[in-house]
């Protein structure tokens, strides 16, 4: 029974990594840059949702149906809008001028943006952690309470699947998706074909950042401590998950995230809590040695 309960913990942790990894991998796949600020956009999204929910729930009649639904939905939507704008602004100001620069310059800029966001968040909202109210509370209890699956976990897995299918469809079909694939393959050639590369990349960032907002809200619903550095470590872990699954591959990000969470939890449970991170990264190294493109890296014809 404890095996099952560890598995559920692993899936719950992994689904959080997966949802962050989806945004990472999509931006990488199309813009061909590692947006290290992704984790911090997540943090901003969670803060926006936190304040929106706190502000709105005060206005609602306590205990009514509206009070249980409206602040949460409004919080998530507002977080998505704010993060979308933030993502486009970051892309326009920090990354667009570096379009022709070596990729190392862009990478360092991304780290700079990440630090800027963390410190700006600390100035605006303070260093003390906030207690994030989960957007859905409660859990399904099985086998006399020894197995608990929280609704947040279910919601996260479902959201992951929806986003995964949605993104794959969006990129595989439709005009914008085609433009994205073209940019991913060869920016210069795409431009010659009349594709507005800058606009396409901006849209990519807009979508990636909106996904970051959703990830931030779900992450803080599962692990409710919210502070300016909340996004940093999960961001790195999710990046690892994206590489694990094959960076650029959307189903790969989902699979990589889930596996990373499960391996981490099982290592803690059955091998050592001290060595869990070391073993997770060891597995990553072995996978990359055997399959340098990541788990699903090769099987996806278009890397987007």
């Amino acid at each position, binding site marked *: 029974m*404890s095996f099952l309960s560890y598995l559920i913990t692993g899936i719950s942790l992994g689904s959080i990594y997966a949802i962050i990894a989806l945004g990472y991998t999509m931006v990488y796949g199309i813009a061909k840059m590692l947006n290290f600020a992704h984790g911090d956009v997540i943090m901003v999204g969670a803060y926006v949702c936190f304040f929106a929910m706190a502000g709105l729930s005060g206005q609602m009649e306590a205990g009514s149906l509206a009070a249980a639904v409206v602040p949460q939905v409004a919080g998530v939507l507002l977080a998505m809008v704010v993060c979308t704008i933030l993502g486009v602004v970051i892309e326009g100001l920090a990354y667009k001028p570096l379009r022709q620069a070596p990729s190392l310059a862009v990478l360092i800029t991304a780290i700079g943006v990440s630090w800027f966001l963390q410190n700006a968040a600390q*100035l605006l909202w*303070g*260093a003390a952690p906030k207690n994030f109210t989960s957007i859905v509370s409660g859990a399904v209890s099985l086998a006399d*309470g020894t197995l608990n699956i929280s609704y947040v976990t279910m919601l996260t897995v479902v959201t992951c699947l929806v986003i995964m299918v949605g993104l794959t469809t969006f990129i595989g079909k439709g005009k914008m998706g085609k433009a994205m694939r073209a940019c991913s393959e060869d920016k210069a050639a795409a431009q010659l074909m009349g594709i507005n590369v800058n606009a396409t990349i901006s849209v990519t960032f807009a979508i990636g950042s909106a996904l970051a907002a959703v990830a931030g809200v779900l992450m803080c619903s599962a692990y409710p401590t919210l*502070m300016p*550095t909340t996004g940093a470590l999960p961001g790195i872990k999710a990046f690892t998950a994206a590489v694990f699954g094959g960076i650029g591959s959307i189903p790969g990000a989902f699979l990589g995230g889930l596996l990373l969470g499960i391996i981490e939890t099982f290592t803690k449970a059955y091998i050592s809590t001290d060595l869990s991170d070391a073993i997770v990264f060891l597995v990553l190294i072995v996978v990359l040695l055997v399959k340098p493109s990541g788990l699903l890296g090769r099987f996806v014809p278009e890397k987007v």
Partner: protein
Amino acid sequence: MKKFLAMLMAAAMVFGAAACSSGNNTGNNGGNAGNDGGSGDAGNDGAIVIRIGGIGPRTGDTAMYGLATERGAQIAVDEINALGGDIQLEYRFEDDTGVAETAVSAYNTLKDWDVDVIYGCTTTAPCVSVAAETYADRYFQLTPSASSTDVTADKDNVFQMCFTDPGQGVTAADYVAENGLATKVGVIYNNGDAYSTGIAQGFIAHAPEVGLEVVTEQTFPDDSNTDFTVQLTACRDAGAELVFMPIYYTPAALILNQAKNQLNYSPLFFGGDGMDGILGVVDESLAKGLMLLTPFNASSTEEATANFVAKYEADYGETPNQFAADGYDCVYAIYQALQQIDNLAEIAAMDPAERHTALCDALVSVFTSPDFSFSGITGSGMTWGTNGEVTKDPMVVVVEGGAYVTQ
């Protein structure tokens, strides 16, 4: 569209810069006042001016602790200067971001400012590095909250306002045993952190001597870890009636949450002084019954404490935690010791390069003298040994109705 974005960002930057500079001003009030000749503009022209340089994290993961120590001390400095006595303090606080290397640069900045006394650091690792420097350079150093024995070991000039880590573990084990809280104990600690490991090891080593059985020892690698269900499941399966968690309150908040919501596991939780602050981050129902060792209770009705809490809340809009209280006490302890130095005027007249050495020797002899005892808001009748460790009575509080109740 481009122009609009540029303007938006420019506005954001101006706003950010404004926020930055206002933050710095609060920290540097004392420093600015003193740079024009050190005449002490608080109203007393003949006053001796002593420069206190603080070090702690203002940014980064541990910023909430560093800011608390900075602000607690600021309140004490303001109060002392407002008294208009013969000793006036100048205060400046430098950011170490919680990193040892940065702390040493912060210390060098303070040296360039001709600092007299070092107040800090907030966290252990930076404090160990700075203590090695102050020992070599001969500066008196008093830390509010760096609790490892490494901070003070073999250094005559470094003193602590907080309990040492192993000492706190032993005290906790004694308390659990004496009050019959439990016999089977699980321990969860952060093995990436010297503070947490120090307390846990002190506790684990002492537990068998007082009849406690440590049924499981669980660790996690650092404070950014988010999932503790594995550790909690191990405690539950080992039958722990009490879970001792000498960790900071951010991971503790997650542990309390996951124990209740994911595992239905409700042992007695017992924490160290790093747990102070938990009330701000968990719901009342989760924190209920949590016990912790802390030298400071913000809901105390004692006059000095209530006074401090009111000022802190008015200035910074939040309830002070134990770190702020330690900082407040540090400044008052230094002030009290300064008053007991006979030749302070003579020392103050010296060249800055010699002044800090003379002051260091004088303060060390006052702090270690048997008749020096300090009473503040984190304890009364505190004394210091030659090893720099403080002796004061521990206090255990339990969370009830969203506030600490002293046991």
